[in-house]
Structures are given as structure tokens and as C-alpha cells.
């Protein structure tokens, strides 16, 4: 059984949902990690869940990245450990410098809760390039991903623009927040650190009208097996 740490920051509000999604995946066991602890308890992967850490009163993720647990997460990621950040977790990973770019207010300056389609460009511990078009929920006010124009093409060429918003048939971009190149999520150069705005943990049961989120956890279980 692979152990997956789910970090709770003050203001995390998708941590319980994330632990449940992990726990309900064959081969995975969820471990609750607390932001004040620098000890990852020997977990095999780390997930930073969504929410509003420290209220997002400064820049999203800017406070959380300074917490003791993030020191350990950074070392874990640099050593090649699989790390996933969802929504606020993605913002924290960008603030921590573990992922490229930054997340700013949505194009229309409004929070958006909806269903989106994304395509995956690369195989990572959490994704497979053959996943096709995934339908996932989004819920964010600051999900507009931006990056230095000089880096953007290199990131694209390296396959680091991991998720892109697309139309239902996957043929065209369909962007809910104004992110550059319709980016919904990115990974680091090695591919072991992944961040995205959509919420896989909210699409893991048929009762919730979506099961595409299960793929993230199934891929992780396989990669850790």
C-alpha cells in the first residue's frame, strides 16, 4: 500500500475531499500532514489540496509556501518524489518555485465554478498522455496562469504545459480564466511535480456526475506500485 500525504494548511478546504479520493483508490492510503510539521512521515507522494490557505489575503500561496511542511515538500520534490498541487495547492507550488509561472486573477475578475474539459500532453506519475479529453470541475478566482514570454515556448516544447482547456471535442481551446495558451496545469521539467486548477478529487464518483478524476489517483497508484 503506497502512502500519500495530504497537507492541511490553515484555510485548506479540500483536504478532506482529497484524502477521501486517495483512500478510495486501490493501492493508496491517505496520510494527513499538518502544515506546522516538517516531517513527511515517510510518505510516497504528497498532495497539496485546494482551499484558501491563510485566506489568500496576500498573493495566493505566498504565506503557505513559508510553512515548515513546505521545506520538507521541496526537498521531497527535488529528490524526485511525486507531488501534486490542486487549485490552491497549484498556487502554492508556483509560489514555492517548484513549478513555473504564476496564477493571477481570472480574466473577468470573477470567481468561476464550472465544468471544463482538459487535454493532457505528457505522462507523469499523475497523468498518461493517452488520457484523452477529461471533464473536471473548476472553482477558482485566481486561476489565470501566466509565465514569462521568454520561457513560454521552451515550457511548451518540453511538454511542461501539461493540461490545456479545450472544447468538448478536444479540437480547440476553451479558456475559462484567460490563462496563457489555455493552460490549466503544468509540471516541472522532470515531470514529478504537477499542478492544475481543476479538481480531480471532485470527480471520482458517478453520483457526482464525473469520474475522470479517478485517473489521477489510479495513475499514481500504478506509478508507486
Amino acid at each position, binding site marked *: 500500500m503506497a502512502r500519500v500525504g495530504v497537507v492541511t494548511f*490553515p*484555510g485548506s*478546504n*479540500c483536504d*478532506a*475531499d482529497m484524502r*477521501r*479520493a486517495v483512500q478510495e483508490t486501490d493501492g493508496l492510503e491517505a496520510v494527513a500532514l499538518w502544515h506546522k510539521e516538517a516531517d513527511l512521515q515517510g510518505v510516497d507522494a504528497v498532495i497539496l489540496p*485546494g*482551499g*484558501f490557505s*491563510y*485566506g*489568500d*489575503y496576500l498573493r495566493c500561496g505566498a504565506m503557505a509556501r513559508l510553512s515548515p511542511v513546505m521545506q520538507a515538500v521541496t526537498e521531497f520534490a527535488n529528490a524526485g518524489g511525486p507531488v501534486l498541487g490542486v487549485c490552491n495547492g497549484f498556487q502554492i507550488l508556483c509560489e514555492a518555485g517548484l513549478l513555473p509561472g504564476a496564477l493571477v486573477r481570472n480574466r*473577468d475578475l*470573477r*470567481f*468561476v*465554478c*464550472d465544468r471544463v474539459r482538459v487535454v493532457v500532453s505528457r505522462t507523469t506519475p499523475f497523468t498518461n498522455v493517452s488520457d484523452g479529453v477529461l471533464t473536471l*470541475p473548476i*472553482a477558482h*478566482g485566481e486561476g489565470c496562469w501566466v509565465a514569462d514570454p521568454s520561457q513560454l515556448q521552451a515550457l511548451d516544447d518540453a511538454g511542461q504545459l501539461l493540461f490545456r482547456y479545450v472544447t468538448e471535442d478536444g479540437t480547440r481551446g476553451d479558456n475559462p480564466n484567460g490563462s496563457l495558451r489555455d493552460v490549466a496545469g503544468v509540471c516541472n521539467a522532470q515531470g514529478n511535480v504537477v499542478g492544475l486548477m481543476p*479538481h480531480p*478529487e*471532485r470527480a*471520482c*464518483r458517478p*453520483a*457526482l456526475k464525473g469520474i475522470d478524476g479517478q485517473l489521477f489517483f489510479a495513475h499514481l497508484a500504478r506509478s508507486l506500485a
Partner: protein
Amino acid sequence: MSFSDDVIRAQGLTLDEYAQAVEGLGRVPTWAELGVIGAMWSEHCSYKSSRVHLARLHTTGPQVAVGPGENAGAVRIGQGLCAVFKMESHNHPSYIEPYQGAATGVGGILRDVFTMGARPIAAMNALRFGRWEHPKTRHLLNGVVAGIGGYGNCFGVPTVGGNLSFHTAYDGNCLVNAFALGIAAEDRIFLGTASGVGNPVVYVGAKTGRDGIHGATMASDVFDDATADNRPTVQVGDPFREKLLLEACLELMQEDCIVGIQDMGAAGLTSASVEMASRGGTGLVLNLDCVPARESGMTPYDFLLSESQERMLLVAKPGMEPRVAEVFAKWDLDAVVIGHVTDDSVWRCTWHGDEVCALPVGLLADDAPKYHRPCERPESLAAMQVVPDVRCSDPGADLLALLTSPDGCHRGWVWRQYDHEVGAGTVAGPGGDAAVVEVPGTDIRLAMTVDCTARHVLLEPKVGALGVIAEAARNLACVGATPLAATDCLNFGSPERTDVAWQLSESVDGLTIGCKAFDLPIISGNVSLYNASAGSAILPTPMVGAVGKLAPGVVVPRSAFPRAGMTVAVLGRPPSHGVGASLWLTHTVGRDAGTPPPVDLSAENALHAAVRALIAQEMVSTVHDVFEGGIAVALAECCMAETVGLVGTTPGSEDVAGRLFGEDHGRVIVAWEHSDDAAIRRVCGDVPVHVIGTTGGDHLALDGVVNVRVSALRVAHRNALKTFAEDVHAVSG
């Protein structure tokens, strides 16, 4: 020391009330005491004009675990669990400062729920604004919606439903009613009581500032031109701190530390402590020097009447103070002992060693003034109830007009700004007849809806209010749920007006008839009076939040047609009421007219039972209530979601407007693919089944008089609110 008449009135007290206080006290109050009496005797805190009516509400039933009077009500849902819920108004603050007013309304109702030991799993809201042409409406709509989203999204509760309506009667006084529901084990419900002489009184949460002072008295006053100057009486919300407070409280509640706990809401520390002592039959001593202060120079008056948010008062078990402080420290929150419980039924406060307040608890609570205001049916109502002679010459154009009108257009612009899926338990979110959420860790699913067609209430309050309950119960049935209990927010104008007092009284009677008939006891709620500006009252708006439970394993039907080839029928009697009180009539003649449709209790109950049976047996895959806008609007809504056409014939008389746009109760649209008519009719028994037609094609065509392209309807319907709210046609200067 004595107070001038102006000073007394500025505390929200009449001179008679002041005399009553002096007599009850046997002396002249201190300055701080005067402020405390003014707040506790305000309409908002004392319900002095509504208590005589509230006593008539139906509030009991075997399913009720905690009825009205606590922070929230609780109803049993099985497996030893309760749904703890309440709805509350935050109307006046939202009009003055829409973002913070609405945000703190959400914060307050969430605290009411988790104070009871219940983790919130769903929120809803009901909003009323002025007409679109009014210069403040766009600003208020944007601010309120952003404030609700800003608070609920950050806190982490899914906002799963609500309703929104516009009317010129709300031009100068919007309504923001917030609902929250949480889950607690019945044997772990915490009440707001102070007992155990000597037990410590602990202040937890945010520090106290000067914000919101006089909020309770402001909420009990009518608006005038100087209202904008009341901005300092509006509180500022901190959803992040509230999230910490939630986690700290629920963690502490796992242990055996707490005697009682109460949210500091309206009238802050004063109201929380007095209510706890009143319920416990005890007294309290509070040392105001110990209250954590956000700023220096605050006086006892400030500490007692501040409405700073995200604060709680709890009475701990003896010796548990260190453990309370430890749990709150884990969540970076203050927990400070500020007093203890006494046995003399006197509420005392000390400051710098002096006793600044010593008031009998009874004087502040049970002995507050109580009024039976004179009620009179307004003479003007009879003329309003006459239906003007108007014809419906182009039903297709009227349908499009209704679907793009303020009250008929799509609400997606609103709910896209609310996180309706956090918690990963939302089975049916906004946009259907009722929302459905899972109860975490169980197979229980709860349905919930908020409803009030104030136009109907205006035109005959008792009938209209009964209709509110019928509609709420029908919405629950449409997702397969059986009613459990309800909460209400009674929004009215000044009770000192005989016509408004009559509206309130009649509405309570209508609600009571409905609550008994549909087994929806009212377990919590609030009253918001003095909703008026420049002498004109709002529409009488008895908002109701109703909660039901789904049978295990039931598949929740959709409220729209998923595809072509489905047989569509309407269940219930053909409409016979005409267009009285309908949205169509208001839209056509520019004023509310006619009488509201009556409710046939037995026919309505039979319909709900039939709908639940069809859903339970999975004989229908689409279910949608028929109400505002009539059957034409209901069918159009079913068609637009997935852009599916329908050709059909609706039941009813030759009167085209009444048939298509009349708002008779007791009707539900269903659609099926694989069932047969005879089987459907067998399940429905005495409930009439009228087959309308079959889905397919690009058009909605009804009765040979409506023929509109569904995709065109859909685009117009979906864009209307966004276009208005974002003012996309305005030229920026």
C-alpha cells in the same frame, strides 16, 4: 444621571420603553446599560412585534430534535444524525455595504450552525433587489453575489441553491437571506446555555473592534437619506478566521469540555451572554478588561455592543480552560476566560474594577416589551385583486420576453460565482427544483430549496404564504425527497403600519396551514421588519428554506429533457385559475394584479406522493415543477438545458394566457423514455396525467400558438442576467 429624550431614542428605545426599563430596574441605567437595553429590546433581538405571531407557527413533530429558540434548529435524519439548519436575513447591512453585508450574513449563519456542533455541508441564499432600471440595483447585485461567494468559497461550504428576484418594491431595501445546513450526531449537539455556578466563560475567536456597533438597532429601523452614513455599523467578514474557528470548535467538541456555546451575532457579546444566561436560568459576571481588543481606547459600551465577526462565547467545564486554550492555539486563535457563571440571575460587567452593568437577565430577555400591533386588511387590496382585461396576442413573443425578463432569465451568472461542489458531495447543484447533497460518511442524501413568490403573498398573504410552503414541498418532491422540516425568514415592512402587521399575521397563518399539511415544522428562523424606505414597504416576503430526505438508492432525476424521443406529460389538474398574480400579468400590465392561485392540500399531497413514487420506481428521468411563468416557462426550461425541442399540447381552457402562463399550484412536468403511459397512470392513481407530446426537433411548439427555436431561446435566456449585471452595453467614460 439622566438621559435626554434624544439620547434614549438614539438607542432605539421609545420613551415608554425607557420608562418600563427604569421601572423594572428600580433605578436609572448607566450609559452602558442603556445601550445594552436598547440592543436587547430592539426588534432584531427581542422579536417584540412578531412574538405574538411566531407563537402560532407549526414547530413540532417527532422528527424535531431542537426547535426554534436555539442558534439553529435540528431535525433527525436517521443513523443517529441530525441536520442542523437555519436561515437568517442580513438585509440592512447588505444595502449599505453589499459585499461585506452579504459576506457577514453568510458568516453569521454558518456560525449559528457550527456552534451547535454541526459541520456545515451546504449553503443557499435568497436575494431580492429593486428593478433593473434603478440606479443601485446593478451595484447591489454585483456586491452581494461577490460577497456571498467570497465568504462561502473561502470558508469551504458549497452554495448549492437559492433564488433571486427583482421588484421595484425592493428599490430602496434589498433582501439577503442566507441559509446554512450542517450535520451533527444527535447526542453531540451543543446548546447556547450557561450553567454550573462558577464555570468559566471563555471568549474565543477574533478580537473585538468597533465595527458593527448598533447593528441590531440599525436593523430595526427604516431607511432614510442618512442611511449611507451608517456604514460603520456594518461589520467586516474574515472567512479565513471563521474556517479556523470552525475547525477549532469542532475539534474541541470531540472532547468533554463544553457546557454551552453561542455565536456572537447581533448585539455581540451582550446578546450572546444574556441569551446563554437566560436559557441556563443563571447569571454571569464578565470582566470586560479581559476581552481581546483590536484597538485601544475602547469603552465598556463598545465592548458590549460591537458586532465584530468570527467570535464565540462558551462556558467550559471546570478546569478545562487550559485544554480549550490549547486547541484554539493550535488553530492560531485566542481563547480567554472573561468571566464565570453565577446563581443570582443578574448579568454583571466590570471594567477597571468597577461594576458598570448589573441588569436582571429577565429584564433583558423574557421581560422585553411585547406588542400586539393593530392589524388591518388594506382597502387598496380589493382593487389590486381585479384582473385587468388583457389579451395574449403573441404567446411566443411573451414567452421569450418572460425568459429574458429579470425574474425569468437564467441564474447561471450568479451561481458560477459560488463554489457549489466543495466537499465533493453535491449530487444536484443550483438550477434544479431542489439541491441534493450527500451526508458525508453515510448513504443519506438531503434535498433543500428556498422559496417565496412574494407577488402572490402581496395579493393575498395567507393564500400566498401557504403557496410558498406548497411550492417548497413540491420542489422537494421533484428530486424524490420527503419533507423533514423548514426554516423561515419573515421579511416585512414596518409592523407599526396596520397593513404590514396584517400581512405578517396573515402570512404566519398561511405558513402554518402549509407546514402542518406538508409536515414541514419550522425549526428555526428569524424576522426582519422595518424593510422600507421613503415610506414604502417591501413586498411581504416570508422566505422559506425547506429540507427533505431522499429514500436510499433513489436516482435523482434531471430537471430538463436530456434528449429527443422522450414522452412528456404534466401531472396534476389542468390550470383553472387564469393569470391572476402571474409573472406574465405583471410583465404585461406593469403591476401586480389579481389573486394568487389557491392550494388544494389533498391534491397537492397526492401529486407529491405520485412524483416520489415515479422517481423511486425509476419510471421517469425528467421531473420539473410548474410554477412561476406557468407551464410554458417550465417546458421551455426543460428544453433549453440541452437544446432539445418539443411539440405538444397543454391542458386547460380556451384562455391561452391562463393555460400557458397561469401559475396554478399542483402541477409537475415529467418525461420518460422507456415507460408506458398505462404504467405511469397506474402509479399516479387519482392524479391526472396529461401527455403533452414528444421531445425532438429544434423548436418548442405548443398548442399551435407558440413556435420558437430552442437555441435562440437558450442564448437569450442565458445572456440576459450577465448582460445586465456586467453592464456590457455601457460606454465607459
